[in-house]
């Protein structure tokens, strides 16, 4: 379990402290933590194959120093692998001056 408390998480989520059962929430966080701890192999670039390479290629240049994270929706629009495979969804080209969409 992370060092973040459930109270911190509730504040992040814009909710009053402990809006739901502590045990259920802790079990859910624990399940996610354990799940992600067992994914080291996915850091191997050979593991994910062509779709991952396509994603990396289409999103290159989106994040520069000091520009902060990309908007989440941008990640989501790029996440659809079948459409990317078919060339039906193409990421917008980064603007050359700022590198941001």
């Amino acid at each position: 379990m992370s060092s973040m408390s459930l109270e911190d998480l509730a504040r992040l989520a814009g909710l009053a402290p402990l809006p739901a059962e502590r045990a259920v929430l802790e079990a859910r966080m624990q399940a996610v933590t354990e799940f992600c701890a067992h994914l080291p192999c996915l850091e191997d670039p050979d593991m994910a194959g062509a779709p991952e390479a396509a994603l990396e290629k289409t999103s290159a240049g989106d994040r520069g120093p000091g520009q902060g994270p990309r908007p989440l929706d941008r990640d989501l629009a790029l996440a659809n692998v079948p459409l990317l495979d078919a060339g039906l969804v193409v990421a917008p080209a980064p603007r050359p001056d700022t590198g941001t969409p």
Partner: protein
Amino acid sequence: MSWWRAATVVEALRRPLRERREATAAMARACVRENPALGCYTHVLAGDAAAPLVAGPLAGLAAAIKANICGVGWPNDCASRILTDYHSPFDSTAVTALREAGCGFLGLANMDEFGMGSSCEYSNYGPVRNPWNRERTAGGSSGGSAAAVAAGLAWFALGSDTGGSVRLPAHCCGIVGLKPTYGRVSRYGLVPFASSLDVIGVLARSVADARLVFRLLAGPDPRDATCAGPAWSADREEAPGAGWRLAVPRDLVGGALAPVAAKDFEHNLIRCRQLGWIVDDMDIGFAADPVRTYLVIAAAEASSNLARYDGSLYGIAPGNPDTGGDDPPYLRAVREVRSRGFGPEVQRRLMLGAYVLAAGHRDRFYHRACAARRDLAARMTAALRRYDALVLPTAAGGAWPLGAYRHDPVAMYPADRFTVPASLAGLPALTLPTGLDDEGLPLSIQLVGAARSEEKLLAMAEALEQELAFRAGKEAPWWRTD
């Protein structure tokens, strides 16, 4: 028993328009009469909404619309208190397509709040009850849509599928559920839960009905940047093929089914072989558990999407903010609105989303889950280059008792284990009812096809439907009282 209780859309369209209108009017009266016992509608519509005088291929018929699909003339509250009395000022593209086809609307189908759930118990309107056994779940999150169609309270229904929310209710209620390829049906006007997974799907009493409705919905939409179509085309339709090749991902199926469901599944594979199809076993070898991958991604996206409900533009009006200590009044008001407006399951998922996206956690959780998703999609796509479809169960057994997971919501997650792979990969999938278990509850089989292969998937399902000769509800007990 009135003929319309068990009739399909295709059968109804063979009758005169006048008879269809009379049947739909009787159906609307039955909705008012029977909805309190089933809870399948949040709002029952009447008058022009149910019976528009518009010509078109669906004239005289009417559908149930899941409460998260926007349309003018009804409240779209997503079964959530936070959107109480919200009325959309526009029609979703899917609703527009049905209106133009002359279709009416019988009501807003009950659902898990914002689509977050697998049992339709997390609704501000109370649970949906399964028409086959009212002490059992109708599945979720499109449980109201499925129950309405199964009970003869709608000719067909629209639902939305994020991780199985069309297919699981279709399984529980013994009807056909089609989840299209991500991006083949416009999401414009669908209230978002997890934007990279959400798809509008069809729930119907037969494969032919599902095809008829899907044909109206499929196609590119300039108002949805992720919707690339293509539209339905006769050129893409396929005649049943004797040599179709199916694959069963045994590593996903193995040991997960109840004995009666396992027996039914193997029996269905035999029937596929009797159709002349080749059925192979394979190990698909996902690197990570699809359910947990889904859990991380869906929670992250929900956390982002539901941030808009803060009581200013969307959401109930702030009350008396009494939480947050020394925080500014605005933040205290936001917390008060969201804590009062969202139900407990939505709040749990928002907190999980905040957890996986928090500073320092994003690379550790969200991006890893995205990598696991890409691995899964690559493996499924590779398998579907060799096979026409993957065959899976939809669920591990028949509909489970209402309240079974009330004290342990985490234990309900595996209910989605057979449906989330197609969702994560953005692939089309269809649930077909196949028979009943030893408690008289429906069982089903799920076919997953390559991207944009709905035409083939529907042809395959229709051939299997005819081979199995099972149509849910012909003898269903709740109709005999009509």
